[in-house]
């Protein structure tokens, strides 16, 4: 009975076409079951936030969409993940191409120990694109999108590690944008940043959703309520509640959700 109720809640928020779909997904690390059967649909051009206490499987679930768990020792998965109605775990899927379509931004800014230009151009270069003017244009437009262009345009050859943490994170977003993905996964992208850098990135995410489907993991409740359209609450490898952000934060169906967002546990 309880299970049925949960699914109807999830369905209530679904009216449009889906960009990402998970169907009865289970994940194990060795013998440990990290995701216990989650089904979920994510809409295009929306910001979807994943919230939940530490260790509940948010990162694990997020990383399924660009198959970044593939290299993890002991990782095993069951169920299907669809992107634009295509099963991304199919044999005929090219993982490299998938990741060009599904970009990822990490918790700790992780620019390559190379120049700013090389960082942004990396994704294009490994695709074999060499045309210098094209690369320059794309680097410029990507850096402009993340509002970093004015700050770095005079020293694109500077080592990216010399930038501040906030600048590095925006650089990492620019690097992702440069290959023109349609989906961007962000795993706590601001948790290592100061409030001003955080505000800049939130502003950026807000603007990006016109063109991209964004999924963001965050531990910051205010952040989730500020920037996301839909919010999913995870607990111990289960999806407890998934709905309009507004609804989750004002009138959640589940007691557990309410307890979590009001800070009573987790």
């Amino acid at each position, binding site marked *: 009975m309880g299970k049925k109720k949960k699914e109807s809640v999830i369905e209530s928020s679904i009216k449009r076409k889906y960009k990402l779909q998970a169907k009865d997904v289970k994940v194990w690390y060795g013998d440990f079951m990290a995701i216990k059967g989650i089904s979920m649909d994510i809409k295009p051009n929306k910001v979807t936030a994943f919230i939940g206490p530490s260790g509940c499987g948010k990162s694990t679930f997020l990383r399924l969409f660009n198959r970044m768990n593939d290299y993890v020792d002991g990782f095993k998965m069951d169920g299907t993940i669809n992107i634009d109605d295509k099963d991304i775990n199919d044999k005929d899927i090219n993982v490299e191409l998938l990741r060009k379509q599904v970009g990822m931004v990490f918790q700790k800014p992780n620019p390559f120990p190379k120049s700013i230009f090389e960082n942004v151009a990396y994704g294009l270069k*490994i695709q074999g694109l060499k045309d210098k003017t094209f690369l320059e244009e794309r680097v410029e437009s990507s850096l402009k999108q993340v509002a970093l262009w004015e700050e770095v345009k005079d020293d694109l050859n500077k080592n990216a590690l010399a930038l501040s943490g906030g600048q590095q994170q925006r650089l990492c977003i620019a*690097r992702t944008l440069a290959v023109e993905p349609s989906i961007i996964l962000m795993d706590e992208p601001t948790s290592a940043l100061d409030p001003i850098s955080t505000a800049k990135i939130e502003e950026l995410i807000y603007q990006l959703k016109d063109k991209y489907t964004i999924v963001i993991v965050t531990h910051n409740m205010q952040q989730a309520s500020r920037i996301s359209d839909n919010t999913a609450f995870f607990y111990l490898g289960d999806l407890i509640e998934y709905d309009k952000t507004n609804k989750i934060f004002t009138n959640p169906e589940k007691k557990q959700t309410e307890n979590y967002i009001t800070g009573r546990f987790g």
Partner: protein
Amino acid sequence: MNNIRKNRLKDQAFKIWGIFCTLLGLVLLAVFIGNILIDGIMRIDWAFVMNLPSRHAEESGIYTALMGSIWVLLLTTLIALPVGIAAAIYLEEYSKKNKLATILEVNISNLAGVPSIIYGLLGLEVFVRIMEMGASVLAGSFTLALLILPIVIVSTREALKAVPKSIRDASFAMGASKWQTVYHQLLPASFGGILTGVILALSRAVGETAPLIVIGALAYVPFAPSSPMDEFSVLPIQIFNWITRPQHGFVENAAAAIIILLLITFVMNGIAVYFRNKWQKKFK
């Protein structure tokens, strides 16, 4: 109170013992080098470096042995470098972390501890006889390459391991393949570490004597090698040969040659340390 004083005494005692132990090796080495310098430094001049070996100590030089050492060093590098780095990349980045990988890993570490004369016997059988290279520079280089391969592999793996996981993550997430990640990110980032390991390995190779004697490297060769198939000698063999001669002049020669051999290894180690420091700074 009493206890505290006792502990402090123990502390002091250990400190002095520690200093003694630390200095033991260094002092002995310094005494040895001092001795060698006294014996040999006056003997070193341009003619000593450029002369061919001779029956007369004063006319004798290290040219053939030095050239032999340089040939062996270059060829050993050419052989051990690509093989060792490729093996390390495979083990570190490609192979699954299973039982087989653990067995391989342990055995490679074990190989580093196999006495060098065993490598000489292996080289004699495989390169000199079966592959019919004879007692050539090439056979010697293959033998030494095998000898240093474990060191190259282990140090390359360490250098690759030291590259933060976040860089791999970033590269894969950008859609890079494994090879692209290795080539564009991991190798450049670990270059300094790999180089350090390789140079240290080579500085060991340049001092090796036993395996080369076993494969048949000569104590006396009239000419410097001019191709990989030529016969050769190397500095340590030349030194050994001179030391066993009764005439006093050859003892001087040996001391002078030792100075030059030490100089070569010190310079190589110095370069290795330089790269290591430079490389470590990059990730701090």
